[in-house]
Structures are given as structure tokens and as C-alpha cells.
């Protein structure tokens, strides 16, 4: 049976563990920071000297750490893109906007072990020569903001933060900024705009790559809460050692949020790729409710493409001779890691598994998801702005007795015009992938619903009861 591996949540849920500094220090807190600050410049064989921060950056690259915010992009690589020659300050922002439906992992860290994240952040800032950093915390986490501010004050009082940190000569200030209450504030360039005091309209890339033109048009690093915590552990144990956790190219641990029709919904920290989706659902989350059968899962937060129970995927694997061999894998046997889920046509996204059993009306489920995206689209670019609401309205119709049998195709046609670089930010994918994948995998249910509605309307008309085959169209979602 697969086991949890608690690296980041090692202490968080221990009885008596509190979010204050004393408790953190009793558990070895800020030792990694001391270690980081003490790293001496190292001269290479070719005569080049590597500063302490450069060595940390190299170690993060070596660790193979991939971002935990959604895209799974290499953290070391992201840091290497930072324009260090612009003469402008470099900013670091911790993305604590955690809003992807199904995801509830960052808040465990923020509420229970804030100093761990702050330590990871200070080290990351030191490694990148950042003098001013921000924590952008979801607006709906007022308590989280208070906890963070308290923790930052404690860290300041002990000189883990502020001027001349621990006598190293390094200065850093961190501010907490409360989010503006929209999902799009979690998209890194929308977040930057919001932090600048504007509407969280994501920026066009090019030219506004955060690593070059980020906050206040200065080079900026945006990392997720969990990602930054990992940096602390990379420094503590060394990048090479960290890379031994998890599986190749999918290193470290991951906190997986599991929700839906399972007996023990919750978060579970596992080595990346060391547990399959089936193990996560059955061994950790206690399996489905009694008497229920699995229907579908969404493997990486609500924007990830849905998997159907029993679905099989052809995955390429390296055989013993180093050659690729193709292997058929059942959905539940997919290792829960970045690459396998991508190869299976979805993604591990924010590390959130949403489980749906056979009691689920799949059309209702999609309508629910779509309504969320229609409500959260920032409305800046045409395909997402118009497409997200259009799909939601069509699904609203379909779940309010006014479906048509062609609605499945109708929806896919709308969805197909949104993703793939047609929009400014990845929200375009986030709102269209669910529609594309739900309908691709459960088309019969959508068609059946439409047909049933048509039949009912015709019958009602024959009986002279008001409704005509012409769509009356139920009231559609309105802005709130």
C-alpha cells in the first residue's frame, strides 16, 4: 500500500504544532536560511567563481523542482529567465491566491506552518537578489493574511527578515497583499496587475514576460506557496538529495487535494509519481461511498480535462534497454505525476483530484463548472469573454429542460474556438477544456438529455400545454 510522504506537511498536523515562530524554531526552523546565507563563493576549475546565490539557483535546477501552481514549469528554468542585467530591482511574488476549484493545499501551509513558506521565500529571494517581495494572498483568506503578518513580524523581530539579515549584509522586506477576490488574480500576470492596484487583466506575452517586464515593469518571479516551501527543503537536504524523492523529472513531493464522492476527502502528501490515481482515491481517500461506482475524475483542478472511469491510455515508457515502449495503462493506474497525466491528455494542474461517482449527472457537473468560468472570466479578450458565458448559457438551458439534441456538437464548436493560443491567458484553456473533454467522453449523456427535452416539449405541445418546440430559454445566469 502506498504511503504518504510528508516533507512539507511534516509537522503541520502534529498535535500541539502551532504557527508561531517559537514552535517553528523548536522544529529546526530557519536553519536552512542560516545554511543558505553561509554558503561561500566557490571557484570552479575554469576559474569562474559562483556566488552563494548562484549556487542555490544551480541547486534548485539540479533538484528538478517543478512549479506547484498549475503549469508544472521547472522552477530552476523560470529563475534562469530572470533578466539580471536590466539594472532594475528584481521582485519575487508568492502566489497564495489558491482559487482553483478542488484545491485546498496552500491554505494548509499558510494557516498551519507560515514560517516554512516565509523561510522558503526568504531563501528564494536571497538566491535571486530580491530586496522586496510580496505575498499575494487570496482575498477570501482574511485569517491567513493575519497569520502571515504575525509571522512576518516575528521573523522581523528575530532578524530573519529586514536589514542585514542575521549579519549577512542581505536586506529583504516582504509585504502581504490581500487579493481582489477573483479567480483570475491567481494568473501570474493578472496577479501582477492587481498588485499594482489595477484590474486583474492578464498581460499579453510577449512582451510582458514577468521574468523581464513584471511588477512595475521590472523582472519578477512568481511562485506558488508550495513551490517556495520546497526551496527550503532543497537547501536543507541539497538538490541532488531532493531529486531522489519522487520519480525522474517529477521530483519531490506533492500535496494532493482529493474531493468529491470519497469517504475521506482531504489532502495527502505523496512523492510525485509514487502513487497512482487509484491508490490516491482508494488507499488515501478511503475509496468511494459504499455502493457507488466511479464515473469520472478531474485530475488537476476543475480546469483539467476529465478522465472517464475505465478509460485506457497508451503511454510511452523507457524500457530497460533505454528504448521507448508503448504501454496501455488504465486510468486508475496512472502514476500521479506531471508527465503521465500530460501524456494521458490532461494535467496534474494544481494537484487536485475531483471524484465523481455514478450518481453524478455529468451534464449538471459540467454546467456547474462552466458557470464558474463564465463568472470568473476577466472579460478582456474576445474568445474567452464571449465563449465562456455562451457555453454556460447553453449548459444552463440543457439543465433546465430546454436542451436540443444538437447541443453537444454546438457546445464543442464554441469550445473549439477558445483555446490553443487564441486567448491572452490560460483561462481560455481552463474554460474550454472541461467542455471539450466532458462532451468527448460523455457525449451520449448530453445527446440523450437534449433528445429527452425535445420529446417532452413536443408532447407538451401536442397536449396544448403552452411550451412550444421553439425554445423559450430558461433564464440564464446573471452577473452577481
Amino acid at each position: 500500500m502506498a504511503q504518504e510522504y510528508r516533507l512539507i506537511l511534516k509537522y503541520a498536523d502534529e498535535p500541539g504544532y502551532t504557527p508561531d515562530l517559537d514552535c517553528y524554531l523548536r522544529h529546526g526552523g530557519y536553519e536552512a536560511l542560516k545554511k543558505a546565507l553561509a554558503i561561500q563563493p566557490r571557484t570552479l576549475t575554469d576559474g569562474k567563481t559562483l556566488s552563494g546565490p548562484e549556487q542555490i539557483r544551480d541547486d534548485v535546477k539540479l533538484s528538478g523542482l517543478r512549479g506547484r501552481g498549475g503549469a508544472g514549469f521547472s522552477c530552476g528554468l523560470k529563475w534562469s529567465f530572470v533578466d539580471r542585467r536590466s539594472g532594475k530591482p528584481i521582485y519575487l511574488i508568492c502566489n497564495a491566491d489558491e482559487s482553483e476549484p478542488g484545491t485546498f493545499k496552500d491554505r494548509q501551509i499558510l494557516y498551519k506552518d507560515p514560517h516554512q513558506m516565509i523561510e522558503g521565500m526568504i531563501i528564494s529571494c536571497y538566491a535571486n537578489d530580491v530586496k522586496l517581495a510580496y505575498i499575494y494572498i487570496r482575498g477570501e483568506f482574511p485569517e491567513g493574511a493575519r497569520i502571515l503578518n504575525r509571522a512576518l513580524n516575528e521573523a522581523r523581530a528575530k532578524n530573519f527578515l529586514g536589514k542585514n539579515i542575521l549579519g549577512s549584509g542581505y536586506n529583504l522586506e516582504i509585504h502581504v497583499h490581500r487579493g481582489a477576490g477573483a479567480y483570475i488574480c491567481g494568473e501570474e500576470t493578472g496577479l501582477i496587475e492587481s498588485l499594482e492596484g489595477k484590474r486583474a487583466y492578464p498581460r499579453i506575452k510577449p512582451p510582458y514576460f514577468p521574468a523581464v517586464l513584471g511588477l512595475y515593469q521590472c523582472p519578477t518571479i512568481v511562485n506558488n506557496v508550495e513551490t517556495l516551501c520546497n526551496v527550503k527543503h532543497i537547501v536543507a537536504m541539497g538538490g541532488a538529495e531532493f531529486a531522489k524523492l519522487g520519480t525522474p523529472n517529477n521530483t519531490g513531493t506533492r500535496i494532493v487535494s482529493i474531493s468529491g464522492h470519497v469517504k475521506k476527502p482531504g489532502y495527502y502528501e505523496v512523492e510525485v509519481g509514487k502513487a497512482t490515481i487509484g491508490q490516491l482515491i482508494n488507499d488515501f481517500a478511503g475509496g468511494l461511498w459504499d455502493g457507488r461506482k466511479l464515473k469520472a475524475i478531474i485530475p488537476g483542478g476543475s480546469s483539467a480535462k476529465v478522465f472517464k472511469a475505465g478509460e485506457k491510455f497508451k503511454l510511452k515508457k523507457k524500457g530497460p534497454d533505454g528504448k521507448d515502449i508503448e504501454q496501455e495503462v488504465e486510468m486508475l493506474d496512472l502514476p500521479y505525476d506531471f508527465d503521465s497525466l500530460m501524456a494521458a491528455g490532461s494535467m496534474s494542474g494544481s494537484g487536485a483530484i475531483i471524484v465523481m461517482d455514478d450518481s453524478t449527472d455529468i451534464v449538471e457537473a459540467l454546467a456547474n463548472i462552466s458557470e464558474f468560468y463564465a463568472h470568473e472570466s476577466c472579460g478582456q479578450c474576445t474568445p474567452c469573454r464571449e465563449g465562456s458565458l455562451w457555453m454556460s448559457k447553453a449548459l444552463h438551458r440543457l439543465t433546465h429542460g430546454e436542451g436540443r439534441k444538437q447541443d453537444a456538437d454546438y457546445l464543442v464548436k464554441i469550445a473549439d474556438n477558445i483555446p490553443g493560443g487564441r486567448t491572452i491567458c490560460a483561462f481560455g484553456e481552463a474554460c474550454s477544456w472541461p467542455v471539450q473533454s466532458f462532451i468527448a467522453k460523455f457525449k451520449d449523456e448530453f445527446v440523450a438529455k437534449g433528445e429527452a427535452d425535445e420529446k417532452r416539449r413536443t408532447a407538451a405541445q401536442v397536449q396544448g400545454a403552452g411550451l412550444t418546440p421553439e425554445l423559450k430559454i430558461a433564464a440564464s445566469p446573471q452577473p452577481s
Partner: protein
Amino acid sequence: MSSPAITETKPSPPTTELMKVKVDGKEIAVPKTTPDPITGKPVATTMIQACALAKVDVPHYCYHPKLPVAGNCRMCLVEFGTPALGPDRKPVTNPDGTVKISKSPRPAIACATPISPGMEIYTNTPGVKQMREGVLEFLLINHPLDCPICDQAGECKLQEYSVDYGQATSRFVEPKVHKPKHVDLGPRIVLDDERCILCTRCIRFTRDIAGDDALGIVNRGSYNTLSAYPGKAFDNNYTLNTVDICPVGALTSKDFRFKMRVWFLKETKSVCTSCATGCNIVIGSREEKVYRYEPRENDAVNACWMCDYGRLNYKWIGSENRLTEVRIGKSTSTWTAALKEISEKLGKAAPGSVAIVASARQTNEELFLLSKLAQKFNALTDSVPRMKEGDKLLLSADRNPNSNGAKLTGISPAQMGANLPKIADRIRSGSIKTLIVFGEDVTKHGIGTDLLGKLETLIVSDILPNPTTELAHYLLPGCAHAEKRGSFTNGKGRVQRFMKAVEPKGEARPEWEFLHELVYQVTGQNGFASIEGLFNQMAREVPAFNGLTWAGLGDTGASVPI
């Protein structure tokens, strides 16, 4: 607030490096950099600029060459490829020796994506066509489609592209989003939010060019709504430019809306006369009536903007009060009779007994002809300064359109208006007996009705009546600039010509025409009887204008040192 700016896009310095790219298979060398519309600094040339140089049209809504790029409408999506690089980072070649192109799996917005060497841009693939159709369909689903009553009809980008990429029938069966239809944004603008396609052109113009953070978007997603800052009116001196750049009929001018279908308007190239900037304009007229001014692009002067004050200052042209008769004393006369009498009177005038107050609203040519008369009599001359508060963008503190013309032709002293008290004194002392006044009410400028009453001869030409015209012994009805041709020299020394849009009212004649006759009769000098000839003669005789020709002014003028 960012500093408002009109950057003069100087012709790219010859050192600008070129870069070869292909647009739809056609190779073209384009400058690596292009001046940023706001800062003027060189920035990487974008795909849409390269396509424009290749004469390939890329449909777009939010992109505007004079505004910062927003990249939100997604109409300009194109496909592209770049030279494939091998593991050694060197370009890979095809078997036939050509450079291998690796096609990008994702499209790019042409308005924001910089070009790179060897890039191939594809604007006419099935994929691109499909993306454009998709965007257009999205824009139309919630659009009210009230073209029959929309002022933008005829110059609407939504209409234009619908012809190219639209579907004949809509598959949208859901209810449309409804938004405010008649929003009073400010004193000069009405907004129809349902027509707005949220391209943010108006917001960017207002924020980045006019320096006013008045406009923004409220709500989210498909409910996004353009709005002025809550409780505040959209009221700066440049608001009407947003009507010009709005690609649809969302922003309408209170002055122009519902007055005239745009396709009926005759368009005439002209210049605004309300200040020394001399914004280039197009006069929209129909059946001898002026309906609107719109800015005309001239990077040396006004980019593509103009101020609201200048734009709306046209109604006097069609005023009921226009002077339409030649008068001798209080009785109606004819041009022949009046000019004959004036010539005879002037023929007898002694040197020093004549003064001329011309207007810096007159054209270079007219002022030049007046300077000929002045020379003949050694007349004291001047014009009337019109200084008010200017702004940092276009509006000049000098509200005369041709102060420099008045100075360069010698009509006005360096300090305009300095001679007016002298003229008054000499009328008072009786040494000046004849006063010629063009286009000014001198009673407001120190030469009161009592002084005018002392004159033996008062010759006045003007457009509208005033106390000076009332006292004229000879009254010659003149023309608005829209009724004649001519040129002005703006505050920075730009000599700009303008064309005739409508016929003069009644008996009114272009001043240069009758001045030409008068100069001939009084001085015996025969000039040119056409505006081209007259201008060219002036260019030869007035040192500052040496080298200029009427034809050479073209549509955007030529600069002279001032």
C-alpha cells in the same frame, strides 16, 4: 498619469537595420525597430507592421498604430514559423538547400508579436480564416445589430469584417447580454454599451494620450461594461477622438449623432483654425453645409488627434448672421463698384496716412497681399494676438492659426499687437486717415468707435458682423477657410494648405481674390490670379518661404524656420 505625448514619427534614420521576413510567401525587408507610439523610442517591429509594409491587410479591432498595444480582440491572430534550429543552435536546411521553417503550433497576435529574422507569417491559411470567423462570431453574439439606426454604419469595422468573415445566420439561440443603451458619458459623448466590443481603444487614448484616467471597465466576463469613473463626467478637451477611434458605433458624438449618414458626406482636406497648432482635419460637408470636422493624420503636427474645442468650432461658418453683401456706407453695392472706389481713395492716400489691422486668422497669401498694400503706403500694420491657456497635448496658448504667417509676411511686429496703440494714437492725432481692417473687431483692441469715427476711410472685410463692420465705409464680405483655398503657418513653422469644402455665402469672395485685384489697381503690380501662382510668388518674395511650392506642400505641409 503618464505624460501625454504626440510623438513626431521622424523618418526612420537610414541606419535602421533591416530584417528579412516573409509574409504569405512574399519576402520583404522591414526595419528591425519602429518608434513606439508613446515614447518614440525604437521598439521591435511587430508582425502587423511588417504585414502593412508588405501591403497585406490583417484585420484588427483593438490595435491602433498610435496607441499602446492591448492585444485583446484577437482578430489579428496569424500563424507563423521561424527557421528551425538544430541541436547546435544553427538553422537547419531542407534537402533543396532552403532554410527549414518550423511552424509554431500556436498562433500569435500580429499586433503584439515582434518579428525575428527569417520569420514567415501566414495570414491566409484555413486556420487563420477559422480563427477570424470564430472571433467575429463571438463579437456578434451579444451585439445588438442595430446598424439601421447606428451612426457608425458605413464606417464600422464590425460591418466590414462581417462581410469577409461572418456567417449569414447566427447559431446563437441563447438570450443576449443586455447593457446600458444610452449612457451620457460626458458633455459631448453618448455611449451605447451594447455596441461596445471592449477593445479599450478609448480607454488607452484617454489614459495614455490625453492623460486622463476617466474611462475604465466594470463588471466581469461577458458583462464587462465600459464606464466613466463613477460619478464623474468624461470631460477633457480630447474626448471626441474616442468617437473617431471606436471601431464600432458605441461612442457617438452628441454634436453629430443622427445628423447625417456618413456616406453622404463630401470629405475635404483642411486645417483647424482654432489655434496655432493647425491640426489637420477633414471637413465633412453636404450640400454646402459643414457637418463635422475629423482629424486627419499628420505626424508632424497632430498625429491623428484634435481637440474638442477646435473640432466643434465650425458652426459659425453656417451662421445666419454671415455678411453676404458688399456695402458702401449703409447701402448695398457691388464688388466692381466698391473695389473701384476703394482703389481711387487709396490711390490718393499719402504715405503714412494708411494703417492696416489684419488678422492672424487670415491665410499666408492674404497677408502677403496686404503687405504689398502696406509697402505702397509705408503703412503701420499689425494684427491681434489671441493668447489663452494652452495644454500639453495639442491646444496652443496662441489661438490664432497663422500668427507666424502674420509675422513672416511682415504684417505683425515680433510682438504681435505692439503697433495697435500706435495706430490708435495716430488716428487720434489725425495722421492716420485711412484704416483697413481684415477679420478683426478693432473696437475690442484699443481702437474704439470714437476713433473709427474720426477716420476719413474705413475699409473692412469680415465674415460676421461686429461694431467695426457696422462703421465701415466699405464692407467686403469674406470667406471662412472652408470656403476657399489657402495656407497657414502654424506655431512651429509648418506651412499647411487647405482646400475648399463649400461655396461662399451670398456675395462673399475669397479675400485673396479681391485683394489681388486691389493690389493690382493700387500698386500696378500684377500677381497671379490663382492660389497656386500666388503662393509660389509669395514663396519667391518672402525669404522665410523661399523654396516652397504650393504643390510641394502636399497634404501634410512643409516646415520653415521661424
